[in-house]
């Protein structure tokens, strides 16, 4: 045990304590000062993010971002990852990832209404010998998310999945949840001396020991004991009991037990409340005999919540917990001092100032532009295939692009009777709220772009998120970020992290949109090497009127418009990476002004009802976007590609470039759209109409396909998973 603190950290701790730290104290601090819990490498940079303004309600110690809907209701949002555990034990790792983020939403006093997830694996097709393992990971991660979300009754409504060889023997599992509730029910996080600290939920066992530290190192040996065991049924009981306790005004502060177990939960809650805690470990209901104080303090056993309550409310809370047959224990009381005092059978085994425990000394990380970037800046342009139609079909069958029906049919995405835009039907999930408004939510990432240019790649994720919610008729109101990188101790890796942060700062300031939550995950690497930089952006949008909600399916007799300019920016495109096996080249650049103008023009078209359908161009470019709209609408189209605003020299570039800020819309009133768009200052063109089959025309050249061909390729994931 112990030994997680670096020598300097231990020295710092003992200087502050003005004495030696005992082994238990070292373990408590070791858990809390792990990268996972302390953000010691990233905190300085995260302070740059625009986290205030707009609808954001800020308060100390909130586990989730809170957005004020200004009518007595609030939305909460939080994002987490569970990468290391999922790479070792995909089912349990992914399931407990869902559990953790749901508890964060509950901790705010809101009911979770949706889960979305962003998943990354190594390729599940092709000849690589890692294909079987990647499929195993993919299959079981999906199963873990499904079992947990389905059982607890929170719909899993969307997300995104990317496959890239940098995730070999590994995976990224990001889960975000949104909550909805009354503003008056938001937990105030205030406590008085004498208040009671209650630990409720699952028993504490030896599972998940050193989980946070495990997640703060590169994945080397398979460390299964660091993975927690999921119990969605218990979490469901905790959810209902917590909601009931909040309704009865029982709770002053809540915190879920996640990474770092009791160590982090107690020290952070005590620090947030500005009050000392005195707790007795012998009261913890343990799963196994003979657990040491260290183990009890750092176990990450799941489905546990900490409540701070007024002692007079204890009987009310007890009767609620009894109703749900949830085990609980009165762990201790709130004290006048500012320390975390931990006892075992009455005697103090650890005593440290909570503020000290909760605030790790920040690490200074060196940062240096990676050498690999020079190597991949320019690549030899590949020869375009003779049959671009076949290339399109190949891209549609690419698991990063293909329909994720196989995945979302395993998720209960309807429970809760809120899901208006369902998985696969639109660019973002849209959930109906009790106040008549709707919330759109989407996660976006692009490891391939971010590897080639972490700054532009991250801007691209933000732009894509914005485009996605705009297409559904929503106005973006906030983003969450999940920054996933390899070791921050590597200056070249750390540089990519700082670039991603800069991009979020620049984009969000320009768009005047707050970052309402986020998470950093470092040390995502295996013996095979580091993962590609993988920031994932979650975008939230609001729709005021259900009639504005728009999906992506082309409708019969639609005229088709493209908004936005297509440039030959092929670096990191699925066409280069998946089809040609090329890594390198110029990455799509985001022009912030253009991005804003295009989004605002499209939102106008969507909200006025002129655009009957809307879809953004992202992975696979314009050709894939059109194909997806055709498949969704079960209709063909005929488009003239030469009319598309572009600066491409070749047809393959025009079809598959992943230039940002582009949209495709379908309309029944083309004259009106042609009349409106010029005043919006956007590049646009009417490129064609729906038809019975698929035709891309450029000059004398015509690429012909049938809708059936598109469908077969696009729906290939089920077959891939069975083979």
């Amino acid at each position: 045990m112990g030994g997680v603190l670096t020598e300097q950290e231990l020295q710092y701790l003992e200087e502050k304590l003005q004495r030696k730290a005992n082994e238990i104290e070292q373990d408590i601090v070791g858990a809390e000062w792990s990268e996972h819990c302390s953000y010691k490498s990233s905190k300085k940079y995260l302070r740059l993010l625009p986290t205030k303004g707009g609808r954001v309600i800020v308060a100390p110690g909130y586990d989730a971002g809170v957005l004020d809907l200004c009518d007595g209701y609030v939305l909460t949002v939080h994002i987490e990852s569970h990468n290391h555990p999922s790479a070792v034990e995909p089912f349990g790792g992914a399931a407990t990832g869902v559990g953790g983020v749901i508890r964060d939403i509950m901790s705010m006093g809101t009911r979770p209404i949706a889960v979305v997830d962003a998943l990354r694996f190594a390729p599940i097709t092709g000849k690589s010998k890692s294909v079987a393992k990647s499929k195993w990971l993919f299959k079981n991660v999906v199963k873990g998310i499904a079992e947990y979300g389905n059982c607890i009754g929170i719909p899993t409504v969307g997300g995104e999945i990317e496959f890239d060889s940098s995730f070999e023997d590994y995976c990224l599992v990001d889960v975000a949840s949104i909550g909805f509730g009354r503003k008056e029910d938001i937990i105030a996080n205030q406590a008085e001396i004498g208040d009671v600290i209650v630990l409720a939920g699952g028993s504490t066992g030896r599972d998940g020991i050193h989980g946070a530290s495990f997640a703060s190192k590169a994945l080397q040996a398979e460390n299964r004991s660091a993975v927690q065991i999921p119990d969605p049924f218990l979490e469901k009981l905790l959810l209902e009991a917590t909601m009931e306790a909040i309704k009865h005004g029982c709770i002053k502060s809540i915190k879920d037990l996640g990474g770092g177990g009791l160590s982090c939960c107690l020290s952070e809650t005590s620090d947030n409340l500005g009050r000392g805690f005195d707790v007795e470990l012998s009261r913890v209901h343990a799963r196994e005999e003979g657990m040491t104080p260290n183990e009890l303090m750092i176990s990450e056993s799941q489905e546990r919540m900490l409540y701070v309550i007024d002692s007079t409310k204890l009987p009310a809370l007890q009767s609620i917990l009894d109703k749900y047959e949830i085990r609980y224990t009165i762990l201790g009381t709130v004290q006048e001092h500012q320390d975390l005092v931990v006892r075992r059978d009455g005697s103090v085994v650890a005593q440290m100032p909570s503020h000290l425990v909760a605030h790790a000394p920040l690490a200074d990380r060196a940062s240096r532009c990676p050498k690999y970037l020079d190597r991949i800046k320019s690549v030899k342009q590949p020869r375009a295939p003779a049959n671009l139609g076949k290339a399109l079909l190949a891209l549609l069958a690419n698991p990063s692009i293909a329909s994720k029906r196989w995945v979302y049919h395993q998720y209960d995405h309807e429970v809760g009777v809120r899901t208006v835009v369902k998985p696969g039907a639109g660019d973002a999930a849209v959930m109906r709220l009790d106040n008549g408004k709707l919330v759109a939510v989407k996660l976006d990432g692009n490891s391939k772009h971010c590897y080639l240019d972490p700054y532009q790649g991250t801007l691209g994720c933000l732009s894509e998120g914005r485009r996605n919610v705009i297409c559904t008729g929503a106005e973006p109101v906030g983003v969450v970020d999940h920054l996933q990188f390899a070791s921050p101790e590597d200056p070249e890796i750390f540089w990519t992290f700082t670039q991603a942060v800069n991009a979020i700062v620049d984009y969000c300031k320009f768009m005047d949109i707050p970052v309402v939550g986020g998470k950093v995950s470092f040390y995502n690497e295996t013996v095979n090497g580091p993962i590609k930089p993988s920031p994932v952006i979650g975008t939230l949008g609001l729709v005021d009127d259900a009639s504005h909600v728009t999906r992506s399916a082309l409708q019969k007799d639609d005229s088709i418009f493209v908004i936005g300019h297509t440039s030959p920016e092929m670096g990191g495109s699925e066409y280069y990476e998946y089809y040609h096996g090329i890594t390198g080249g110029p990455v799509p650049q985001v022009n912030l002004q253009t991005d804003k103008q295009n989004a605002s023009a499209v939102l106008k078209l969507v909200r006025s009802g002129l655009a009957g359908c809307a879809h953004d161009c992202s992975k696979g470019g314009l050709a894939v976007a059109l194909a997806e709209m055709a498949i969704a609408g079960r209709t063909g189209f005929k488009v003239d590609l030469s009319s598309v605003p572009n600066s491409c020299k070749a047809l393959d570039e025009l079809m598959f470039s992943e230039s940002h800020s582009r949209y495709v819309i379908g309309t029944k009133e083309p004259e009106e759209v042609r009349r409106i768009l010029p005043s919006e200052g956007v590049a646009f063109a009417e490129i064609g109409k729906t038809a019975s089959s698929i035709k891309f025309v450029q000059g004398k050249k015509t690429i012909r396909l049938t809708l059936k061909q598109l469908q077969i390729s696009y729906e290939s994931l089920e077959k891939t998973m069975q083979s």
Partner: protein
Amino acid sequence: MAPPKIGIAVFPGSNCDRDVHHVVNNLLGIQADFIWHTKDCITGYNAMIIPGGFAFGDRLRAGIIAAHSPIVQEVKRMAMDGLPVLGICNGFQILVEAELLPGALMMNDSLRFVCRWTKVQVQNNRTPFTSQFDKMQAFDIPVAHGEGRYVADSEILKELKKKNQIVLQYSNDDPNGSTDLIAAICNEEGNVMGMMPHPERASENLLTINGRNDAITIFRSLISHLQQQEQQKAIA
């Protein structure tokens, strides 16, 4: 004439209880109350709905623990008294485990949980839950279950057909491999029905895939049945 009241059974792990409540109470304006599973005496309710979810976390087998809870003993009594009892999804599984309905619900033939929209057709429109449908009327409705494949031996099937107990059938779009495409069955008397699809999820145009909330007719039929019964009582 007293307005009808509907009880919604809630077990630890039920998760469609609030959705059903929303439809009955908010959309249709009929009082619906949650009744916790430990309740062993239920009075004043004209019908019971057992909603979907994972009662007791589907431990041992879906529905089996719930089937032995106090509330289900009351539901059995109410069913004997002729009161309408509707089980949806996990509620259907519970009714089968409680032996209020014959047959069994097994793992889907895909061996995976399936959540998607499908179409069902009304085979029997003479139950309290389907009286407002036309016979053979087809409508869209979602399913969401891991163990929804209805199976029964040939004797039971013969009886079900003879006594017109097959209420809903999947119309050629079978999500789980059920025998004879069975999506819903009722008991001999017709007052107890179990269905795998979720009518509460298809009761508002906004939430449906084609803008048609035909499935709300399940609840409308039930309410109209209860109102008629109250009227008859009032006349008597």
